[in-house]
């Protein structure tokens, strides 16, 4: 008695094994017609798939796919792998890994290609979560770096106050240190939050308050860098439902970038950063952060919102503007950039005034 007979497997055929495979298996000819499809395949795509083109069945299109492992297999008689998006009959889209291998005739020509499709959607999701986790850690490090700059500034003012026995100045320095300690507490809280999927918390707030807070946070820093920080706020802009932490982070990043750009620019003697909050039109308001630093060239302008792109060398993580873009997207806003090498840059962030209704 053979092993298979002993286990009750003697009536299994190759066809029944292939049909039972928990993945799609099909055989195709040179013209991408389906010659054979296993049971799993026919269960999800219907029984009338034989003789039809694979791209019609799997993608719902009437043209060949630009990257096709089957075509490659016919061309080089080799084994190929690719990632594909497959459109199921019920409308769901699944990410699948496609393997193709050649089937030879007796004289060694490829007569057909066997293609196997395995669902990798769940693995892809885990991969995405890991990438998000990595990104959030990088983002938080960026935040901490900004706060440390603030602490350095505060400590400098505090020290100067002690040296000159100017208690008002020391007191001022202490205030800056306190503010930054509060910030670092907030960031630590963020780290704890980010272990879960942190959603922005929306609450009603005056945009003018956020602009003023940013102005206050960077006033001393700007002074120590020799940059004039101008704040122009239209107080008529009504209170809106926004994520105050997000918007502050956005403004802080933009102002900090502008200040650093001014510090780096040696062409001009006087630098200023202009923070403006005003209406854009009847339905929108805008923040404008403008500097007269060295501006950006075309390549930089195209890349600024890409993660890890930085012109600041070891002092920048290339994440600041990516965070800005993400926050703006969360608030259904739009970013516009005007810049010219040697002249400066203007970042305009436009938000709808009736944000409340859309975010609920």
């Amino acid at each position, binding site marked *: 008695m053979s092993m298979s007979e002993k286990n009750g497997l003697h009536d299994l055929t190759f066809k029944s094994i292939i049909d039972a495979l928990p993945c799609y298996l099909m055989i195709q000819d040179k013209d991408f017609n389906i010659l054979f499809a296993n049971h799993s395949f026919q269960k999800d795509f219907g029984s009338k798939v034989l003789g039809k083109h694979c791209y019609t069945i799997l993608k719902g299109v009437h043209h060949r796919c630009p990257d096709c492992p089957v075509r490659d297999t016919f061309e080089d008689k080799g084994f190929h792998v690719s990632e594909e998006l497959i459109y199921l009959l019920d409308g769901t889209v699944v990410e699948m890994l496609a393997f193709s291998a050649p089937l030879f005739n007796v004289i060694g020509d490829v007569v057909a290609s066997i293609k196997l499709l395995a669902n990798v959607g769940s693995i892809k999701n885990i991969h995405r979560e890991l990438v998000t986790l990595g990104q959030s850690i990088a983002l938080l490090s960026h935040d901490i770096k900004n706060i440390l700059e603030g602490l350095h500034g505060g400590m400098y003012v505090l020290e100067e106050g002690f040296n000159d026995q100017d208690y008002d100045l020391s007191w001022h320095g202490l205030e800056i240190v306190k503010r930054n300690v509060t910030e670092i507490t907030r960031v630590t809280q963020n780290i704890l939050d980010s272990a879960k999927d942190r959603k922005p918390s929306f609450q009603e707030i005056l945009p003018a308050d956020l602009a003023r807070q940013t102005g206050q946070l960077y006033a001393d820093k700007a002074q120590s860098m020799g940059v004039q920080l101008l704040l122009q706020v239209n107080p008529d802009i009504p209170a809106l439902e926004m994520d105050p932490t997000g918007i502050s982070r956005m403004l802080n990043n933009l102002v900090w970038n502008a200040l650093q750009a001014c510090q780096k620019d040696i062409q001009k003697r006087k630098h200023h950063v202009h923070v403006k909050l005003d209406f854009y039109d009847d*339905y929108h308001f805008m923040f404008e952060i403008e500097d007269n630093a060295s501006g950006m060239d075309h390549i930089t302008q195209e890349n600024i919102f890409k993660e890890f792109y930085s012109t600041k060398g070891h002092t920048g993580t290339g994440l600041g503007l990516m965070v800005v873009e993400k926050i703006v997207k969360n608030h*259904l806003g739009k970013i*516009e950039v005007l810049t*010219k090498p040697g*002249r400066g840059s203007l970042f*305009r962030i436009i938000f709808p005034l*009736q944000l409340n209704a*859309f975010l609920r």
Partner: protein
Amino acid sequence: MERPPVNRPAYNHILFCTDYSEDAESAFDHAYDQAKKHNAKLHIMNVIASVNPCNICMDQTLSKEECQKESREKDERRRLEELGALKKVYMERCQDLKDCCFVVRVGSPDVEIIKYADENSVDMIIMGTAGRNEKKRLIYIKTAANVSKYANCQVITIGSPEEHQTSQPTE
């Protein structure tokens, strides 16, 4: 004695930005003269100061898809109306120029003008000092100031003569 030839920069593309305002009207004459003088192509551009830059519909009774369709259609209608009226007026006036085209864009005027100038290697931008939208406070950005600051070519802004007269000090 013969004078040495002067190396004048070549102006092949001149961009004139208009929004029907008086300032733009006075700027047109200048743009026309410049295009004629340099035998350049005159690009006439109108930016519809974006009604909805964030692409959100203000009518909350509509669904998201309806909203998008509605705002798209509104934009489209407005664009076509303005295009038709403006194009007719300006094309008639530019008949004896070498080449001329009419463009309409939707968005923030300063951003769109600079983008168009860069894409079409424009050598000179001519526009009114204050547009209709700015004067009526329909849009709060300073178009002419931003264009002159950030454009990568020459920019000439022209105010309307009437305004110039009224702004002169009276004794």
